[in-house]
């Protein structure tokens, strides 16, 4: 078995309250490995059942507008430029120039060095209640960097004006059972999200479920991320297949629901990667509403990490307003 480490972990209020006593690697492992196993067949059956609901006409119109309001419009390419970020921000503010009643997206999601360009482009449209700026940090997407580098990465993005930080966990450490390492890193990054005025940037913890291999691991990682102080748990980076799937998102929502019942705290969920059509996105809305309740369908508690999804939603929206099918020539190329 693994070497017993009994060094005390970084203090995290939530974990102390829940696990109690002195928080150690051992007590954390006992807690996480003591979680009940996931009934994979039941989970997948439930998820596919939730995907069969028929959402039409006015419900569909509502759903489409809500989806737009929940999107983290994302560009995470090595080839990103300030110009690309500016056009992304323009699209976030005016998704459909032919119909100004289209709501704005929740946030734009960019690499840390692009945050200042996003801040500049957003101007007065940003800030509280406006379009948020999310930055990926901590050596995204692999997470393979030393902790001081990850902290510096995070601090830089926060200082540049990021409202939200999307961090990746160290999957290598998690899969080899070193939960304490992962825990400590999340706590440290959370601390790095602190601004000078004492407020915190929202912390989204990316579990990269495609690399966790089992549903049991997804459940453990979700608990771990929440215990360490994550405000959001996010499925994937979008760089690994499979990215977000409905069963995995359902499982994470169940953890969030359990946490809410236990502590009254509301944790957000963000499926990211692989959600490309309105039809898929509506399945997620149904799953959220039926698992944790409709109150989760707001940007502070649920997001879609997506880029091509927005165009498909706009096409569907145009179909509903004009009465005829629209085509890709009628939305922006990005």
């Amino acid at each position, binding site marked *: 078995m693994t070497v017993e480490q009994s060094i005390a972990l970084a203090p995290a209020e939530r974990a102390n309250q829940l696990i109690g006593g002195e928080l150690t690697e051992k007590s954390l492992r006992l807690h996480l490995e003591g979680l009940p196993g996931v009934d994979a067949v039941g989970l997948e059956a439930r998820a596919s059942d939730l995907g069969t609901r028929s959402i039409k006409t006015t419900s569909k119109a509502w759903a489409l507008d809500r989806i737009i309001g929940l999107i983290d419009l994302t560009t995470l390419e090595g080839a990103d430029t300030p110009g690309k970020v500016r056009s992304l921000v323009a699209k976030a503010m005016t998704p459909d120039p032919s119909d100004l009643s289209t709501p704005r997206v929740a946030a734009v999601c960019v690499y840390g060095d692009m945050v200042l360009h996003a801040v500049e482009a957003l101007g007065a449209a940003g800030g509280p209640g406006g379009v948020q700026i999310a930055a990926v940090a901590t050596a995204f997407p692999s997470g393979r960097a030393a902790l001081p580098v990850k902290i510096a990465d995070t601090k830089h993005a926060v200082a540049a004006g990021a409202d939200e930080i999307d961090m990746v966990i160290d999957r290598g450490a998690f899969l080899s059972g070193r939960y304490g390492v992962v825990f400590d890193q999340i706590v440290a990054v959370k601390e790095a999200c602190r601004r000078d005025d004492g407020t915190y940037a929202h912390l989204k913890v990316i579990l990269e479920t495609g690399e966790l291999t089992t549903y049991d691991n997804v459940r453990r990682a979700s608990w771990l991320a929440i215990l360490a102080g994550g405000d959001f748990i996010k499925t994937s980076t979008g760089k690994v297949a499979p990215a977000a799937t409905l069963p995995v998102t359902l499982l994470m929502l169940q953890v969030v629901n359990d946490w809410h019942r236990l502590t009254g705290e509301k944790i957000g969920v963000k499926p990211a990667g692989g959600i490309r059509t309105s039809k898929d996105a509506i399945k997620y809305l149904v799953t959220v509403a039926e698992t944790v309740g409709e109150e989760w369908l707001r940007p502070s508690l649920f997001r879609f990490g997506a880029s091509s999804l927005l165009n498909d939603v706009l096409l569907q929206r*145009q179909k509903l307003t004009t*009465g*005829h*099918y*629209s*085509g*890709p*020539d*009628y939305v922006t190329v990005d």
Partner: protein
Amino acid sequence: MSRLTVLKTYKLYIGGTFPRSESGRVYEVATAKGAFLANAAKASRKDARDAVLAARAAVGGWSGATGYNRGQVLYRIAELLEGRRAQFVEELRQSEGISAAAAEKQVDAAIDVWVWYAGWADKYVQVAGNGNPVSGPYFNVSTPEPTGVVAVIAPQESSLLGLVSVVAPALVSGNAVIVVASERAPLAAISLSEVLATSDVPGGVVNILTGSPAEIAPWLASHADVNAIDLAGAGSLDWVDLQIAAAETLKRVLPPEDGVPLPSVERVTFFTETKTVWHPKGLI
């Protein structure tokens, strides 16, 4: 011992696969004398939408192939049609109530028309393109390029020859086609889709819908991702409304025709857009 006949399920042809209608509907196809012949899928507007998606995805590859290559692929279909002559003759005889001789004549004509159009694939550009005289040190060249996704309402009579006469010309230049087959006699169209599926035509380049043109045509005419519509077989529909709907999204529209359209290179060039390129002459 008597043997039960294995009846054929006639399905749609969308994106290189044979799905049933999304709506689950079928309608009865009868012989000319009114006896039951088969159940054919009755396509819905969502099938039409799926077909447009499949066609749009296929345009790039098909229009990007060289004219010579497209010509060879189309010619190969004629070869396969020749091999299936007996089946087409039988289906035409049953569904149109014509004599075996008339059916054979129609199949022959359809194959000949197909070959005729296939030959244009690497020639129409030379005929319709042009080097324009301009006053400046430039070459100025205009060439026809495929318009993209073409929706076609096939003629209601002569179900095979009519279909071939409207599908082939749109394909030649590199367009992807969605065709609504003859409502009364769709069997030949479905058999043609089996020929296409086993040929070298990429999936999605030809999509065949069976069902009611009156129901599907308005959705295709108003669809913003369809670039042109051929109303050849829409004479009995309210085709002026279809033209108006098509105009809203700037489509090219070919009006209805009586009977089967004759082979003409104009049908090929109609579904193209002219691209004009200026290129500086070397100042030697």
